[in-house]
């Protein structure tokens, strides 16, 4: 097997493992569109990273968190529905990112790679980022697991039980921002949400506990990455979209199977 393919598989599987549990939470909390909005803002983060001369991943995380906070602040005003606000922020930030990138004429950026990912060009350095960042994010999620579930089930109950609900929500947004920063280069900012929610949604029908669903989502994600990458190689297809098509096919196949529990 070629070395670049091994790197691509390692990167994709790392992200799929991370996306399983986190994507499950996005599905449970009905935050798919929120995740999409955050990832759309990532391009602005990349530009910011180049401008400030820091790693683009740091720029992405900063912009994602800033956007999440802005959203929370706007939602407090309750003048517009959440989906309208998300639509404004999502496309506003994506376009702002594209415009800002155009201003940096000296910078040669492969825009398509950022939008749709370039999994076959993964470097060792990227792998280090994926696995170290992924380990941090998964550890954080494991530590907060029970309380995040409680907040997901009912915020009022969690509050009465003395849980720091706002801090937990913020921590969750931070975790999503981390995943976006890590996965951006692999699947692209337009497709990240699909890798988060499709495997989780596929896993729902076959599981009876949150942990089972998270684990099975990871398995489905890894399967989609492997299948998508092999297909991309065999037929010379774009990597990121192939993985997403594989995940969607898995979902379709899964929903045709008889349900358990």
């Amino acid at each position, binding site marked *: 097997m070629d070395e670049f393919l091994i790197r691509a598989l390692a990167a994709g599987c790392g992200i799929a493992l991370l996306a399983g549990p986190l994507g499950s939470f996005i*599905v*449970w*909390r*009905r935050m798919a569109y929120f995740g999409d909005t955050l990832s759309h803002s990532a391009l602005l983060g990349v530009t910011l990273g180049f401008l400030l001369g820091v790693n683009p991943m740091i720029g992405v995380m900063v912009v994602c968190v800033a956007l999440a906070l802005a959203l929370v602040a706007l939602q407090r005003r309750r003048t517009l529905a959440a989906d309208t606000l998300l639509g404004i922020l999502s496309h506003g930030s994506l376009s702002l990112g594209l415009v800002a990138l155009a201003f940096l004429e000296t910078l040669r950026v492969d825009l398509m790679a950022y939008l749709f990912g370039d999994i076959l060009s993964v470097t060792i350095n990227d792998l280090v980022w994926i696995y170290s960042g992924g380990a941090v994010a998964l550890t954080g999620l494991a530590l907060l697991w*029970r309380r995040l*579930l*409680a907040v*997901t*089930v*009912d915020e*009022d*109950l*969690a*509050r*009465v*039980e003395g849980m720091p609900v706002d801090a937990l929500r913020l921590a969750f947004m931070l975790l999503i921002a981390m995943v976006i920063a890590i996965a951006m280069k692999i699947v692209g900012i337009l497709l990240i949400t699909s890798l988060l929610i499709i495997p989780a*949604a596929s896993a*729902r029908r076959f*599981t*009876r*506990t*949150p942990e*089972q*669903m998270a684990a099975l989502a990871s398995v489905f994600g890894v399967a989609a990455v492997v299948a998508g990458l092999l297909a991309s190689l065999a037929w010379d297809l774009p990597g990121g979209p192939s993985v997403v098509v594989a995940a969607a096919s898995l979902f379709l196949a899964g929903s045709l199977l008889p349900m358990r*529990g």
Partner: protein
Amino acid sequence: MSTTHPHRHTHATPAPATPTPTGSAPPGDPLVWTENLSVRLGGRVVLSGVTMAVHPGEVVTLIGPNGAGKTTLARAVLGLIRPSDGRVQRRPGLRVGYMPQRLTVDATLPLTVRRFLALWRPVTPERITEALEEAGVTRLADAAVQTLSGGEMQRVLLARALLGDPQLLVLDEPDQAVDVHGQAELFARIEQVRRRHRCGVLLVSHDLHTVMARTDRVICLNGHVCCHGRPEDVSRHPEYHALFGRHAAELAVYLHHHDHAHDPDRGVVSGHDGDCCHG
């Protein structure tokens, strides 16, 4: 009838400095109390000048028409709403068990009853079984929470509240999602729980009728405290009648069969000087 005639007095000031409204509360330190509590939600004054308390072992029922601020008061007591004026005080370290009106878990979250109960604090499986037994829903332990009926969910929520070994139970309209038969059973359960754990209970209800026999004190609410006291006394109070109309009169008749003994010196008290009920 074994009770004496209600003695009645009105406050010169709407907000007494003592945490306990006079005339009807048992002696001893309250578990939780409000002092001159006002709450504004979205620019609208929902509660104003509410002073009340819940003591260990007593059942206090909040009653009032829709929009009277019952749930708001309960939520303020729980610390879920910040008062715009006045204070909510709790005993330090007070353990509160909250049973919300309803709870829907998103269908995408696979969750059994047992797992649901384990989310709120570290608990052993034995403790969960115990709580399920006490709430009378052991058979539901492995059911998915989304498949529960309204009444079953209420019991599970009661079990959840018990897991925290509460000193104060706050129950928001537990009779809402349940039919009449289920209501009687549920209230019997709650009564058992109160006796066993000796906890105070703050009960929100839109219907004094159903909770009458299991209540020590009633606070009749309509944006502020209209009147409060023993249930049979409140049900005869003119402000209560003004608030609930004909239904209240029927209740008074019903009460003759359900009266039970209380401290003779507890009476019924008006919350304000006759500025209460709307016409």
